[in-house]
């Protein structure tokens, strides 16, 4: 051991070690895959002492878990040889029929032949990006947009251009102007990615009139729409909004998911696409994973066939409504002047905007010290925007924890305002990119 050696005489290597033997061989798209102090902070946020307003995790505890357990056991007992076997690349035919029944609730008439079952709608996003995007192609997306989508677009080296949105969703004029400017400059716009209903992260919903405008603008400009609708059934007021796909079968690829209406652990989502696109999605699916898990597809199918799933969705809605209400009343009561936020009519998220000069990323370490976590806004932009924003989730914590979390966060913002007033500035964002929590928090 050390005391027996004379280390001063050791010969220094002429070439250093980079720890990673493959450092010079990664694809260009791996460039941004680096350790991040923000992600490291989320490691603390996973501890129970921390009130996490960061996670977008559905409250699966509200499911009748005993019933789900019996259902799964019954599936193995009765249909084990099928459930544990490879399946078709397009997905279980019966489940695809059931998915069409689900989509009918949001105004979509579809043929099960045009549905591809995917590993969550996240895989559908990956497959769509894979078949449409060459490096440098333009994807339009709301600003802010879903972090998981931005990660996928980035992995395929798409050029993401954000479209302005307000409390009523995408601003149609911004969409039209951006398309015109991009096309005039010779850019190839491959599609518009949008979450029109209870958007992640902004919590806003595209109003009915704008839906028609967005459809018209994209149709006129020949821009495909990718409509991601994981939260559409989780509205707190009235019937589900009519989807974009309901009014345009050929110009919209629709993505759905059971992750929020049942449970994300099944990893069952789907894409509904025009026939030719669907053909390519199936081939892409087969090259990616051969086939989706037969087991979880059949389990979801059995759940839909035997359980009162519409009632369960109502249960989720009421639960999330109470939490949304708690978050909004807590924000109202506790936040310092100058902080504003959206008022979602469904879904999981509130999007807050901090006063001028504050940087939500710089605020996160102090928040974690005070045992509360959120997701800084920059993760939801591909261009470094969102420094003054934060996404606050109300889906997972119990109402009293939400109240406590907002109280702690308000205190942190008060402190940060004092720092801003002292130094007359916020800290500058150091890196543009997807700098957000892992999948259990996304």
């Amino acid at each position, binding site marked *: *051991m*050390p005391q027996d050696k004379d280390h*001063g005489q*050791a010969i*220094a*290597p002429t070439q*250093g070690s980079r*720890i990673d033997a493959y450092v010079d061989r990664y694809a260009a798209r791996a460039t941004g895959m680096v350790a991040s102090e923000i992600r490291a902070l989320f*490691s603390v946020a996973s501890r129970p002492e921390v009130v996490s307003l960061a996670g977008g995790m559905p409250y699966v505890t509200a499911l009748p878990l005993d019933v789900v357990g019996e259902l799964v056991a019954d599936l193995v007992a009765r249909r084990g040889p099928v459930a544990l076997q490879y399946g078709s690349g397009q997905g279980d035919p019966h489940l695809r029929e059931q998915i069409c029944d689900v989509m009918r609730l949001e105004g979509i008439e579809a043929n099960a032949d045009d549905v591809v079952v995917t590993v969550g709608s996240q895989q559908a996003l990956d497959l769509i990006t894979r078949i449409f995007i060459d490096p440098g192609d333009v994807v339009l997306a709301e600003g802010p947009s879903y972090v998981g989508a931005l990660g996928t677009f980035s992995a395929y080296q798409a050029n993401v251009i954000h479209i302005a949105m307000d409390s009523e969703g995408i601003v149609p004029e911004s969409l039209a102007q951006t398309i015109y400017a991009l096309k005039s400059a010779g850019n190839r716009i491959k599609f518009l990615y949008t979450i029109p209903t209870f958007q992640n992260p902004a919590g806003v919903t595209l109003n009915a009139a704008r839906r028609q405008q967005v459809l018209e603008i994209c149709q006129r400009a020949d821009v495909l729409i990718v409509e991601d609708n994981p939260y559409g059934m989780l509205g707190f007021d009235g019937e589900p909004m009519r989807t974009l796909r309901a009014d345009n079968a050929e110009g919209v690829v629709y993505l759905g998911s059971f992750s929020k209406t049942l449970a994300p652990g099944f990893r069952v989502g789907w894409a509904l696409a025009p026939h030719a696109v669907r053909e390519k999605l199936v081939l892409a699916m087969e090259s990616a994973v051969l086939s989706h898990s037969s087991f979880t597809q059949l389990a979801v199918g059995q759940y839909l066939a035997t359980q009162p799933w519409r009632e369960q969705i109502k249960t989720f809605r009421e639960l999330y409504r109470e939490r949304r209400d708690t978050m909004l009343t807590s924000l109202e009561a506790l936040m310092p002047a100058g902080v504003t936020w959206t008022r979602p009519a469904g879904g999981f998220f509130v999007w807050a905007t901090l006063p001028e000069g504050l940087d939500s990323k710089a605020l996160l370490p102090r928040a974690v010290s005070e045992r509360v976590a959120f997701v800084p806004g920059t993760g939801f932009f591909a261009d470094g925007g969102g420094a003054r924003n934060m996404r606050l989730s109300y889906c997972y914590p119990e109402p009293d924890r939400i109240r406590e979390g907002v109280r702690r966060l308000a205190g942190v913002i008060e402190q940060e305002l004092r720092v801003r007033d002292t130094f007359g*500035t916020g800290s500058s964002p150091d890196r543009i990119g997807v700098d957000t929590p892992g999948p259990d928090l996304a």
Partner: protein
Amino acid sequence: MSDLGHVLVLAGGLSYEREVSLRSGRRVSEVLRGAGISVETRDTDASLVPSVLADPPDAVFVTLHGGAGEDGAIRTVLELLSVPYVGAGPDACRVAYDKPTAKTVVRSFGLRTPESVTLPKETFHDLGASAVLARIVERLGLPLFVKPSRGGSALGASIVRNAEDLPAAMVGCFAYGDTALIERCIDGVEVAVSVVDLGNGPVALPPVEIVPDEGMYDYAARYTAGHTEFFAPARLSPEVSAACAEMAVTAHTALGLRDISRTDLIVDADGLPHFLEVNVAPGMTETSSLPMAVEAAGDDLGTLCRILLEQAAARGA
């Protein structure tokens, strides 16, 4: 074979460096298992005290970085529980973890350390930041290195080359702590020297030279394999290398540290080392310099950890 029956590795915690600590804990547990030791790895939470009381380990390896892991708190609790552990005691940790205090102590032992100013957030608020910052720039010059007075992994740290960037650097620093250490930034070779004491007094392991791809050895450069080039041993002359080793051993001794430490220093253009800070729970991850130094010395990390634990167990609580 070792006499150690049951060893506890503490990892995780609630500091900003939790993720790094979990990685260090995994690595130490793995190498100890490889050395034939029965290891339990656990986080620090409300179940720690009852579980240690119910089944006291022969010794504890603390791989908690930042906060309670390095400020003496967890070691105080281990002493209350009469459990032996590897590393410095609480009093020494408290001094070493506070960078300005550590600098003062090592300076009194004749070590060179960059001129600096330490100020709490409140001072800037009460006296006006711009006037105070202007005086700091006037006194220390540019560039400056701004970092929280306590903490690690370069969290909240930044290099300031233009005076107009200093306020933003201060805000970034105060995100991670309430007191800032503002140092004159010395351009030179970044070197980490680990020190181990296996019973015959502290000995320096080969210095490790750190060359980050993008200039600053920040969080991404530290924990993304491939983003930093390490030379172990460092490309230093024998004389400079010996001076670095001497500085690390002196810092270890001056601060009253025990068993293991890592001193970060910078070697200027004239080959003179400058003390920056010392770590009482050095990183043990795949990209950390202490394991590299052990390897460069031709030693085995598992054996080293085992000997340190045996030593702690023999020393007792």
